[in-house]
């Protein structure tokens, strides 16, 4: 199940406008045809002329709309509502607020829920009080004007009837806005004053950045889903504690604008200071397989974030979806490119053998799925490496791309019809070509191994663990601030890369060597340039002095060089592997990295979540971890929620006025209410019926036949094919009508989303809520005004 609200995109706009134009066009043509037929039926051949004159007259009315007259009618509606005490609803609202405080104060001990309850109360109360006002106002005003003949004095002036419709709609909308703004302001003040002091800090609009969620299983292999711990509700997937299982959140578009100011302890111990950084907030769910004590429940489950920039994981993890390709994937991810080349050679041999097997119809060594994953994996690897725009990777990318192209041809040929001439021969040839391309790829990997190791660096920042707060008060505990300049304990790869980079820089600046030995200032340089602790700096100088003495390092032309031509990172890596750089410092090898520059690639940040407790599971879904951009003022979200309510009310007004142009008040109210209820509560149901597959979604006649035949749904009717077609044809008619109805009834659910965001303390995103709501409103406003104008124009106001 997906709880995400879909954003409205430019592509949606194009599709929506096309669909809207199609619907409006169809409705317009149908209406014109029916009108023409009615006119001819009533007046004979003269009906065509009458129809044409009527149509021209209507178009002329539309073309000669007068803002002055519309404004006059808008003012009239506003005065009418005010003088007829429509604003009394405001008094009801005030009374409700006076007494609501008794019941809502301290209704929940959790501050964020207090906020939710208060905000929801205000938003819901305003909506429910406004609804009857707009229903009655919109459905009753015009019929009442016609009944008491006030409208006669208006239509006998030069006012076009479509102007009357617009004036009414705008006037009522103004009344509604007046009410909404007044109640909204009072509601805002009430929330501010009524909320307990400890909850007011929660009154904010969080701006979340959500990521994509993948999982890594306990064996370290990527998975789509985590473990299902037995919940019927499979919204959340779980990771097992104290294993290699991880929830992997991939965040996009992380940049300077995502940073917020947070409190951090000064490194010199001088207290706290405000620094920029990323704010993570989570709402994970714990699942325990052992009965814990009360204190352990209150303490919660221990979790840990790892921020990583791992291009090898991104580029090559797809291969591990295939059991056969998994060794290749692991070698690539671990930067063992020469080992990976060997795996590719083995793979190449198997594929070449499959090429021969195809000709003699022997079963292949690799399964079709392996070929598909191989093709997708090479494509993805080339894509991810290509994104880095690194010239050093071009040869490897080209080799991956070649394998991809041949893989596509092979898959296409394999899935082609057996009737294709010489299919086996062609398939065999493609197998050989693929095997050859993999051999070439292996050769490139061997040749470029060092370059790849250097240009696809992995950086992992393991953050301190924390306890996930679950049921108790402690939402703040789930908010973690990570300063932009993050200090962390480095792993071997990061350490060797860091030291290599630092030494290359100092070497280029001629700061490593003095005479034939190391610079006497080297330890101090390492501390100031590399921010390495005094103890670790001394250790490095000590080890390098030994290495220089042993001949592993040499001085050439005033610069320090590795004697056997190794690169610096390989040199430091070998030192680490030999345990020569084990820190005596309590903190180990602490380093600093920049969250934006070092840990993201093109704005993408990878956050791995681990559960540290044995026999416990941490459940998570995509929205359960998000990065908080700078919060917005509560007033902003509150105003957006009000705007969404206003759009809904406006749509009701548009519908009510339109219907009331042709029927009396009670009937108009019935119709408008029906539209609202169906649009609010049954739109999804209609959609479900319409998208149901033909077998599962039987029509009425087919269901009746199957009932008579005592046959279960999904089996089908026990009738001839011809009869089936007839029944399905008949059933298609109500289905088409339902489709038409579902297109005509506005989806009122689009107006509810905004308040949900505000109630839960989030900012209201425009693309997901207000833009769809506005477009729905506009999409109905235009045709409704035309329809209402036509209905009123061609209606006899004095008809007996």
């Amino acid at each position, binding site marked *: 199940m997906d709880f995400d609200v879909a954003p409205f995109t430019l592509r949606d706009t194009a599709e929506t406008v096309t669909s809207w134009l199609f619907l409006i066009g169809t409705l317009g043509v149908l209406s014109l045809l029916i009108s023409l037929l009615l006119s001819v039926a009533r007046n004979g051949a003269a009906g065509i002329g009458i129809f044409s*004159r009527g149509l021209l007259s209507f178009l002329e009315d539309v073309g000669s709309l007068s803002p002055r007259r519309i404004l*006059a009618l808008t003012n009239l509606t506003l005065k009418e509502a005010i003088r*007829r005490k429509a604003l009394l609803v405001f008094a009801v609202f005030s009374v409700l607020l006076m007494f609501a405080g008794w019941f809502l104060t301290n209704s929940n001990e959790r501050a964020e829920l207090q906020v939710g309850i208060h905000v929801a109360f205000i938003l819901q109360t305003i909506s429910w009080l406004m609804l009857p006002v707009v229903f009655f106002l919109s459905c009753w005003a015009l019929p009442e004007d016609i009944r008491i003949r006030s409208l*006669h*004095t208006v*239509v006998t002036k*030069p006012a076009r009837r479509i102007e009357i419709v617009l004036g009414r709609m705008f006037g009522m909308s103004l009344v509604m806005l007046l009410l909404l703004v007044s109640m909204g302001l009072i509601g805002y003040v009430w929330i501010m004053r009524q909320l307990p002091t400890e909850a007011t800090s929660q009154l904010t609009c969080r701006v979340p950045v959500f990521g994509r969620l993948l999982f890594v299983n306990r064996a370290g292999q990527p998975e789509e889903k985590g473990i299902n711990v037995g919940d019927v509700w499979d919204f959340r997937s779980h990771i097992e504690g104290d294993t290699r299982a991880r929830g992997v959140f991939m965040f996009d578009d992380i940049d300077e604008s995502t940073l917020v100011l947070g409190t951090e302890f000064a490194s010199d111990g001088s207290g706290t200071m405000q620094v920029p950084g990323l704010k993570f907030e989570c709402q994970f769910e714990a699942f325990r397989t052992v009965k814990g004590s009360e204190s352990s429940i209150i303490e919660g489950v221990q979790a840990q974030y790892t921020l990583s920039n791992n291009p090898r994981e991104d580029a090559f993890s797809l291969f591990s979806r295939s059991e056969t390709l998994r060794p290749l994937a692991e070698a690539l991810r671990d930067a063992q490119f020469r080992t990976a080349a060997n795996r590719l050679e083995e793979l190449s041999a198997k594929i070449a053998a499959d090429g021969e097997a195809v000709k003699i119809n022997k079963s292949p060594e690799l399964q079709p799925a392996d070929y598909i994953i191989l093709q997708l994996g090479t494509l993805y690897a080339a894509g991810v490496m290509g994104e880095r725009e690194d010239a050093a990777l071009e040869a490897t990318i080209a080799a991956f791309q070649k394998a991809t192209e041949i893989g596509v041809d092979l898959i296409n040929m394999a899935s082609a019809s057996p009737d294709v001439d010489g299919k086996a021969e062609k398939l065999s040839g493609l197998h050989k070509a693929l095997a050859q391309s993999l051999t070439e790829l292996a050769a490139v990997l061997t040749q470029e191994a060092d370059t790849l190791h250097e240009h696809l660096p992995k950086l992992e920042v393991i953050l301190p663990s924390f306890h996930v707060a679950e049921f108790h008060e402690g939402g703040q505990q789930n908010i973690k601030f990570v300063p932009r300049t993050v200090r962390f304990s480095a792993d071997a790869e990061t350490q060797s890369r860091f030291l290599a980079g630092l030494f290359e820089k100092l070497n280029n600046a001629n700061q490593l060597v003095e005479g034939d030995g190391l610079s006497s200032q080297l330890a101090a340089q390492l501390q100031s340039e590399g921010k390495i602790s005094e103890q670790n700096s001394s250790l490095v100088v000590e080890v390098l002095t030994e290495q220089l003495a042993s001949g592993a390092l040499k001085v050439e032309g005033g610069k320090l060089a590795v004697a056997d031509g190794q690169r610096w990172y390989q040199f430091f890596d070998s030192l680490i592997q030999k345990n020569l750089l084990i820190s005596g410092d309590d903190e180990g090898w602490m380093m600093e990295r920049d969250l934006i520059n070092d840990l993201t690639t093109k704005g993408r940040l990878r956050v791995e979540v681990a559960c540290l407790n044995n026999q416990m599971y941490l459940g998570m879904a995509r929205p359960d971890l998000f990065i908080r951009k700078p919060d917005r003022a509560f007033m902003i979200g509150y105003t957006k929620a009000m705007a969404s309510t206003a759009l809904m009310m406006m749509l009701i007004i548009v519908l009510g006025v339109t219907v009331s142009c042709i029927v009396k008040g009670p009937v108009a109210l019935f119709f408008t209410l029906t539209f609202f209820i169906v649009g609010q509560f049954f739109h999804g149901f209609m959609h479900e019926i319409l998208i149901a597959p033909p077998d599962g979604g039987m029509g009425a006649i087919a269901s009746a036949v199957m009932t008579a035949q005592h046959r279960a749904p999904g089996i089908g009717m026990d009738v001839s094919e011809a009869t089936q077609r007839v029944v399905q044809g008949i059933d298609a008619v109500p289905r088409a009508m339902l489709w038409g109805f579902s297109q005509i009834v506005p989806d009122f659910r689009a107006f509810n989303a905004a308040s949900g965001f505000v109630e839960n303390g989030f900012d209201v995103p425009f693309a997901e809520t207000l833009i769809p709501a506005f477009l729905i409103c506009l999409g109905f406003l235009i045709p409704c005004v035309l329809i209402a104008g036509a209905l009123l124009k061609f209606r*006899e*106001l004095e008809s007996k």
Partner: protein
Amino acid sequence: MSNDAVIEIRNLSKIYRDFWGRKKVQAVKSLSMDVKRGEVFGLLGPNGSGKTTTMKMLLGLLFPTSGEMTILGKPASDVSKNEKIGYLPEESYLYRFLNADETLDFYGRLFKMSSAERNRRADELIEMVGLGKARHRQLKEYSKGMTRRIGLAQALINNPDLVLLDEPTSGLDPIGTREMKDLILRLKSEGKTVVMCSHQLADVQDVCDRIAVLFQGELKVLGRVEDLLEVRNETQIRSSSLSDAAISDIREVLKKHNISDAVISRPRADLEELFLRTVRESGERPGRRFTTEEIAGKSGKSGGQA
């Protein structure tokens, strides 16, 4: 269309139908008539005779079943004709929550009138209909007579060329009625054309130049009021100086002589008598009557009675 005809109606019929399109009643039957520029024209008839239906068709509130109408040279369905028309409905169907000033301002905004012009015109009209002291009271507080007055004011807000008045004196006291009639005559003197429906026959007789009498949707009588009320087959002699003996003599002499100072004229019936006779005769002998104008057309001279 002749240049002096403000309203032209040709073969106008109106059939009211029910929801299913079945005929309920034919309110107007093949009506043809003209209203000339600058005259006060009265539409008479008993209840249900079709006069209000005709007026509402002229205003576009109802659509004719057949026939044609032009008002000020434009089809009745053309909204732009309303620029030069003023309409006072039978009841004053105004917005009761507005006061007199707001009412006139609202209706004025529906025309191309500047704010200053609207204010000036509103002041004039409120003064003219005598509502100066009540101009800031909401219409729901007005008496019926006051409502008719503000109704008339709104009908005149645009200084119209053609004024359609539905029962203009209904609900007015004798003084109000007198003022309304004076106003109608004033409008006429300003060159405006007035069409009025009324049951107040004396009022119609006082102000109308021409009248049409409808009965059951048919035009029964159409002509100038003075022609229609003339009794053509009788002679009346009046004198203030005749003794009984003289009268006796005159009767003798009249057989042989004319008396120079005696007033000799044809006696006039009143409109009420004409109206009742028309309705009675229409009941006894159904069918269309000739109008005085049709007779004049046939004989080549004006006057006469159907």
